[in-house]
């Protein structure tokens, strides 16, 4: 594949990325969140069509119109999401899509034999082919989606995070199968969030950053540090001070240690992950980092009572020394823990309403008396907020849709800030915001922290975390694997932790 580009609206997910996979090769595609891995794989599997660029397959330029045509060419893909039809049997799930509309692609007996063989290759010999899919465990489901790919006559197998639910033994079994296939002249392209898998299995490694290919190297010449450096765009082991762009927080952070306002006690996110214990102090900004799906979102949802942890508690500490357990979303709200969800543009914006109404909509519960709204107070809070966030708006009574995207984001954030939270939990709040607005919002968060609000800031952008936070908690496979003091950490440190730092490798399961 060469010079592939793909845009989603104004977001350029892939920008002239290039990838070359040879026969008899296991190739790993690595990159941070949003580097374009999944987009590239969707193009390769026929789900998405590129805006430009060509796919050359066995010497010929080809176009992939659908997943079916990709499979017809010999490219079989296992997607990141475990895609199954829950009501159907294991066998039907494995052979799904191999038929014509009316004519079966295989005899029933051949299907049974083929499914048995594929499952046995993957270490699931005893699985009843007639069981409905929804009765299977997560790992069994994931392996069944792998079986669905390998029963096809494939020459390139694409695995997008296809081992996330597997234990060490199941993974080894799968890797043995892949090595065997390589020896038969077939190729594998895989992504993984485990650096040990990348280094242990791949012959070649391609690194993507911001939608472009930044490096392709043989596994023998690759090192963990080298790969991490390419992913983050900085040399490995560079001076940490280099990773310190934008302005740091002002005097607020240097005050005498503040009292804790939130305590997480032995919180277990998943059955197999390690318990998490953290304390967040008033005025502190705690960053949360991790690759997609490593538990940081679940952690945030536990903090604000949207999700029940497997084990452990979240405690809110009042000024008067009282301690309350967060048990529900309403409870968390009452304790001053406010959550700003991720999809604000779609979940939080009331397009036809005015700027002011959008801002004040969460306030009426607090500000109404006997069912009457106290507009004057709400107006005052709005004026305060507009002042502090440098919100540019012709008039608060205009509809919010006339505001720029960045200013809309400000209003939406302001809605939660105006409720005067003790703990503000934000999930990727600056996604898609332009540079200047970002700077202004950094300022807003810093002032909030200076006023004693504890902020828990989940972000997919490492640079953002390094600019804004005091500490960065890094998640990997449902556990908190590193707590990095921002001042002493570099981009590379964070990325290394995101991919599972050395000492955690291999020990992460069961």
């Amino acid at each position, binding site marked *: 594949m060469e010079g592939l580009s793909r845009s989603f609206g104004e977001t350029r997910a892939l920008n002239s990325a290039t990838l070359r996979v040879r026969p008899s090769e296991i190739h790993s595609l690595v990159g941070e969140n949003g580097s374009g891995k999944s987009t590239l794989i969707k193009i390769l*599997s026929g*789900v998405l069509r590129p805006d430009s660029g060509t796919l050359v397959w066995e010497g010929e330029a080809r176009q992939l119109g*659908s*997943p*079916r045509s990709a*499979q017809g060419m010999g490219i079989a*893909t296992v*997607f990141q999401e475990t*895609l*199954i*039809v*829950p*009501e*159907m*049997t294991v066998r*039907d*799930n494995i052979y*799904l*899509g*191999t*038929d*014509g*509309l*009316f*004519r*079966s*692609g295989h005899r029933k007996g051949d299907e049974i034999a083929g499914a048995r063989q594929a499952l046995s290759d993957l270490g699931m010999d005893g699985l009843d082919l*007639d069981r*409905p899919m*929804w*009765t299977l465990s997560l790992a069994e489901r994931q392996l069944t989606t792998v079986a*669905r790919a390998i029963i096809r006559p494939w020459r390139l197998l694409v695995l997008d995070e296809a081992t996330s639910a597997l234990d060490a033994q199941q993974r080894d079994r799968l890797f043995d199968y892949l090595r065997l296939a390589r020896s038969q002249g077939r190729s594998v392209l895989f992504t993984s969030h485990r650096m040990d898998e990348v280094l242990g299995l791949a012959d070649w490694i391609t690194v993507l950053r911001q939608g472009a290919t930044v490096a392709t190297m043989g596994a023998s010449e690759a090192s963990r540090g080298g790969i991490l450096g390419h992913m983050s765009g900085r040399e490995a082991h560079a001076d940490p001070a280099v990773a310190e762009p934008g302005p740091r927080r002002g005097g607020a952070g240097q005050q005498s240690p503040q009292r804790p306002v939130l305590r997480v006690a032995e919180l277990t996110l998943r059955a197999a992950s390690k318990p998490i214990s953290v304390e967040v102090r008033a005025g502190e900004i705690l960053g949360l980092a991790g690759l997609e799906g490593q538990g940081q979102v679940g952690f945030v949802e536990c903090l604000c009572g949207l999700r029940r942890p497997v084990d452990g508690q979240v405690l809110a500490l009042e000024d008067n020394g009282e301690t309350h357990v967060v048990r529900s979303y309403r409870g968390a709200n009452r304790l001053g823990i406010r959550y700003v969800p991720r999809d604000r543009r779609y979940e939080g914006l009331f397009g036809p309403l005015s700027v002011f109404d959008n801002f004040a909509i969460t306030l009426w519960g607090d500000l109404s008396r006997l069912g009457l709204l106290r507009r004057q107070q709400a107006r005052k809070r709005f004026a305060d907020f507009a002042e502090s966030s440098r919100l540019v708006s012709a008039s608060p009574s205009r509809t919010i849709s006339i505001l720029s995207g960045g200013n809309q984001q400000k209003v939406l954030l302001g809605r939660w800030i105006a409720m005067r939270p003790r703990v503000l939990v934000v999930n990727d709040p600056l996604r898609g915001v332009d540079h200047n607005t970002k700077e202004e919002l950094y300022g807003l968060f810093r002032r909030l922290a200076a006023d004693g609000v504890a902020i828990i800031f989940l972000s997919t952008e490492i640079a953002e975390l390094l600019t804004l936070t005091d500490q960065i908690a890094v998640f990997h496979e449902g556990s908190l694997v590193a707590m990095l003091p921002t001042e002493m950490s570099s981009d590379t440190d964070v990325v290394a932790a995101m991919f599972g730092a050395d000492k955690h490798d291999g020990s992460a399961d069961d």
Partner: protein
Amino acid sequence: MTSVVSDRARPSVLSTPAVRQILRRNTYAVVPLAMLIVLFIVNAAVQPQFLAQHNWATSMSVLCPTVLTAMAMTLPVLSGNGGIDLSVGPLAGFMSVLISTLLVPAGITSPLTVIPIVIVFGLLSGAITGVLVAYVRLPAIIATLGMYLFYDGLGTEVLPQAGGSVPVWLVKLNGSVGPIPAVWVVFAVIALLWTLVSRGSYMRNLLAVGGDERTSYTAGVNVARLRLVTYSMGGLLACLGGLMLTGLIQGGDGTVGPPYTISAITAVALGGISLAGGRGGLLGGALGGGVLFLIQELLTDAHVSVYSVSVVDGIILIGALALNGTVEYLRRRSSVSRR
């Protein structure tokens, strides 16, 4: 103690692989089948003439359009993503108008020409709906509401009250062939054809698309074409229902069709078919149609007024959906606890 004995006795009958597979494929049909049997017995007990030869044939021919339109509704519903075909009733009703005011006056009365015309009309009408749903991507409920209004208006415009004439053979289809109601022959032909279709991969594709569209697409199922074919077959079944309806009312009537849409939806729900798609089968629609018919027989026998029947229909529809949900919940729970 007795439970231990029965547990041990049961496998000997039900554990042969073939039987187990049939049961597993059709578990959804167990409840409607049981309802059908119970209602049949109740009807036979309450109405002395229910099993009489002449009544038997009449009942079957009254039942036939209900069952066929219910089957026509079943296929789009199974295809998921809000699949439904509201036009089945008016489309069936329009067949009576088409045959009695267009075909018969033009001298087209032979079954060898009328039946193919009806079949092609159904396939084409269903294909138009299918294109709107699968390729233009209109919500099925809106696209088929449009088709509903179209056929309803057209039928009523041409023939606002009963009229016209129909070929004799069509009326005879509602009589008896010897001791057997002729409708049985129609059902047998459809059952035979359907068995052939479901021996191939169509049902697997249909249930997969209805069960999880994304999985099916990425696995290589041509989702859009499958939907197109599904709505076409639905249109075909609706028009066959219309053909039988024409013979039943022995003429044309532009207003006779629309109620069959509502009865078809109710029958689908009674047939244990998930309205979300992906679970059920054509048999469910047929059984549901039968159950609905037997309930209405009981109500008629009890001299319940037409308006009250409508009230009861509403309650049945909601009750059937609640029952589906409950059965599904119990099935999942028992299955989980067994492991």
